[in-house]
């Protein structure tokens, strides 16, 4: 009796079976990569805004403190977005006729709010609180990136859950002395840049981190990764 299948069938079936496994794995990898990409989570994407406001100019160049505009960052879950009045504090004196600022003047004149597009936007089921992060020594730039060097604001980090958990699992890797929270050029301690803090000098982040976690009474990773820390 002759063979029903040709000998090559063996090879084809092997290739198909293994190929399918690899294909699945590849698909999974592709999905995971795509899901972490800026295309998906808008990382690195500058949004259209009514006024091309430059943090690089105001915060970096002029050295205006973050809290001049984001007033409630230390007291509330929401950092606060400046009212038109805050812009006009200076711009009623400076660049009073700049066409670029017309939307601001229009808003102030008519009482119509400026309508910005949110850049760092968490999903609605996540309850993030600025004040507690600030008071535990998490610097602005840990989450927002080098805002003082951003001519147009963009989202610097993925803002995805695994990224949040990085720090909630090992806060010692990220915390800094409270006094440096608003310092956008802060550098983690190393032997070239030792950090003096509470009578001790630190030359590496982990050692300093542990000391800070202890001093600021930062909760244990088990507490910080409880679901209700962020979801409710």
């Amino acid at each position, binding site marked *: 009796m002759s063979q029903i299948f040709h000998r090559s069938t063996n090879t084809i079936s092997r290739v198909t079976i293994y190929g399918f496994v690899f294909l699945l794995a590849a698909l999974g990898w592709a999905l995971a990569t795509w899901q972490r990409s800026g295309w998906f989570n808008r990382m690195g994407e500058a949004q259209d805004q009514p006024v091309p406001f430059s943090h690089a100019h105001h915060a970096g160049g002029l050295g205006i403190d973050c809290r001049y505009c984001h007033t409630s960052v230390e007291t*509330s879950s929401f950092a606060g977005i400046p*009212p038109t009045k805050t812009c006009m504090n200076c711009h009623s004196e400076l660049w009073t006729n700049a066409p670029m600022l017309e939307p601001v003047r229009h808003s102030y004149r008519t009482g119509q*709010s400026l309508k910005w597009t949110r850049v760092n936007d968490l999903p609605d089921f996540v309850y993030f609180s600025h004040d507690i992060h600030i008071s535990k020594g998490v610097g602005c730039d840990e989450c927002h990136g080098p805002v003082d060097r951003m001519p147009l604001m963009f989202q610097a980090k993925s803002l995805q859950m695994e990224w949040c958990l990085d720090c909630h699992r090992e806060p010692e890797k990220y915390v800094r002395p409270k006094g440096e929270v608003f310092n956008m050029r802060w550098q983690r301690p190393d032997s070239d840049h030792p950090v003096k803090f509470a009578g001790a000098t630190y030359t590496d982040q982990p050692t300093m981190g542990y000391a800070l976690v202890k001093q600021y009474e930062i909760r244990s990773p088990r507490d910080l990764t409880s679901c209700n820390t962020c979801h409710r």
Partner: protein
Amino acid sequence: MTEHESAKPGCKEKAAKLFSIARSGAKLDLAAIREKLSKATGPTYWRSLEELAEEPGFDEVMHREFPRLASEWPEGCSRRDFLRLAGASLALAGLAGCTKQPLEPIVPYVVQPERIVLGRPLYFATAFPVSGIARPIIVKSMEGRPIKVEGNPQHGASLGAADAHSQASVLGLYDPDRSQTISYNGSVRPWEMLQATIRAALAQQQASGGAGLRFLTETVTSPTLASQIAAVLKQFPNAKWHQYEPVNRDNVKTGAQIAFGQVVDTIYHLDKADVILSLEADFFSPAGLPGFARYARDFTSRRKMQPGVAMNRLYVVETAPSLTGAKADHRLPEISRTSIAHFIAAQLGVSWERASDGSVARASDFLQASEQPTFWPAVLEDLKQHRGASLVAVGDQQDAEVHALAHAINQALGNVGQTVTYVDPVEANPVDQTASLKDLVTDIDAGKVQVLAIIGGNPAYNAPVDIGFADKLSKAGLTIHLGMYDDETSALCQWHVPEAHPLETWSDARAYDGTISIIQPLIAPLFHGRSAHEFMAAFSQQPEQSSYDIVRGYWRSQFKGKPEDFETTWRKWLHDGFVADSGSKPRAVTVHPLKLPKPERGGHGTEIVFRPDPSVYDGRWANNGWLQELPKPLTKLTWDNAVLVSPGLAQDLRLATGNVVEIESRGHKLRGPVLVAPGHAVNSITLGMGYGRTRGGSNGSKRGYDAFQVRTSDAPWSASGVKITRVGKDYQLARTQNHQIIANETAIGETIKRAPVREATLAEFIANPRFAQEMKEEPARDETLYPPYEYKEYKWGMSIDLNSCVGCNACLVACQAENNIPVVGKDQVRRERHMNWIRLDAYNEGDLANPRTIFQPVPCMQCENAPCELVCPVGATVHSSEGLNDMVYNRCVGTRYCSNNCPYKVRRFNFLLFSDWDTPSLKLLHNPDVTVRSRGVMEKCTYCIQRITRARIDSEKEQRKIRDQEVQTACQQACPAEAIVFGDLNDKNSKVARLQAGPRNYGLLAELNTRPRTTYLAAVRNPNPELEKKG
């Protein structure tokens, strides 16, 4: 808000048939139930007649997590349709997680108001007036949106408690059905045109001194409004001011008039009373006596079983079961015209005369025999033994003469000045309101009324039927109605003006004890409403005055101090929420020789009594979904009213719950569904007000029957000689009494008494304080395969005192408001899909004719060994590091395994998109700190995790621990009886830890080894040994 009324009949009818087995109880054999109860040994606790009857349909409902067809779709959707859709959604489900988050706008202020910190609430003290009486509240405002009402802890009428009605007022504020424009005969008109019309009408009235000018208001306690009306009446001396509302206190006023020759208000001091007799005085219900919140606090302060505080004893004689009756140590169901007050008064040496015919009920008639040979003398004896520390309280619905007799009794017992005080009336102008309305209608009928301004209220709907207000209203010349809704009255008036909500305007009002509160607005009027003050101003010389100017101007004129101090004082009043020491002045009064009026005995036979609805009151909150869906405390009825009938009468007339009856009283008829109410007086039926609205908004219209159709002015609260006949088809009521029931049967069929509620008498408690813990054996702590959790910081827990809980429903609405809990509608309630996270179970014990009732609020128990956590396939419900069973909505895929595995049945599932995501005004209502859940998501109580988180963050910023009672859950904060206590169990000195260490502490179903974190304190009764002996 969403009610999915079926368009196609097929599926609904099928469901209706199945439900009717368990719901209507059409086949209940009451005689058999009675026999069974009489044979039972020891106390048997039951929640409904259906449960007692062990109906086959009931069993099925109980054993299924949700009743059959609960998972069907409300509209005619077959299984095939479902599979087709399910296939499609499954295909899409994989992609759902990959949606790119949409871009969102962020809109700052132009000029940020000074005190607003974005993301942080502001609190304002104000008051919510109901029937004129201020209920002191503190309102939470998020960026200018009032979202939550709390009680005012500094105000004596609240002490921090907030009732269901005032808490639901925020939903009323955002109600999209509120009227939004001034209209003249249905077409839109500007305010200026109305002002011109009023001006012209007043010019015509000038000559006659306002002889044709009439004002009709509800009860007014507002000093400002009263002074405005007085000013107008001064200008038009022949004009008249009438007051009417259906739930009035006419009998109280007449009673005081009989006893003292003047109108005074009676204030009870329940904390000082050892023995209390209530004659239908419902001092725990928000629809009962003014001052109920304070009364509940005072009463339960004597029931905390603390050393050194003697327990009080409460006797209640009443017709329809009430909250106060449920808390009674001895309760006697009697027809409303009981003579117990006459008996006690006569025995205490009070004598009286009848105004006309002296033959009826003289004091000497009561000196011999008592109609109730055991109960009455026992109560009398107990009162006598506690002279100066006893109290006889009478409900607003009782006849004036009973009030007068009670005043005499309290005086004879030496209670005046101790447990009872008399003060100047709180009302600005106390009048007999029924007579006042009658006068008005007579004048209208005689053509004497050319201008009628109706300020608030809805008399066309709720006036006594024999007065014929609605029919005669057209005879008045110019009719103007100020009201929140375009309702029955505005339909009959030429002009309608939308009224501002109490949260939208400046005003003032007095609390039950006379304390003045300035009402301040939380938000500008959403729908261009005008306040009563602005409306009245249109009749004055300064028609354009704002509410603020009017109210502030009035108080400035009343201010006694230095003018420059006024601003500071005014700000203090606003900050505190009340004017200190402004309570009514005590009045020293003594009882005159009593001259009682001619008794109005309108025949014999069955009597009807009228009661305000515990939720929607007189119908003013008919459109409020929270209140409509709130199960009425004893009947557990939602979205409807029913004719309450005692089991005895039901048996005689062969009636069952759901049967429609026609009721004929004094020539007026109505039809409504029967509800068999255990504990109702036999020869009496109760009609609830507030339903049968024709123009009550999308939620309030066409629900239930209109009790005002048979309510006459000569018998406003009870009428004898009523005819009841069964007619037509049965009606489906949506009741929750059989929902989420805790079975006495295990899966393998053995019967175990679960003892969900535990109670003992005071004597038993003294003999064995740990009686509750000995009723059931708890498994050892190590009987689990899982390693124990370790709690380094906090370990949250809750204690609920069954002895304190009065069943007022405040916690349910508090939870609903705090946690964005949606309303599901009547049809969905019948499918057991109502969403309240905390439910109020009412357990009855004893015979149907007069059972004892114990209330048990049941939120999530936050079990240590939580059955729900083990079965979730996606880890959407997990144990937190502080002991909570977290519910992670964004992880939930809706398998409902957790709910199936929960022995307490405290999880709620969003079968449909119940939350309103579309109505713009309702979006403002949401608490921004809590997720608004979508379809297909399980939800449950989380101990108000948003409040814990906020307190934790605040305390961590200060590097300290959260203080005891710094976090209060919403239910705890609202509770008038302090029955709910929440706190940290790791802190041995916390209030909750001390309570849980106490002897009365027990865990619900703790024998299942769930180790609930919410535990209960067993109830203790204080029966009179005399009565207990005689059975």
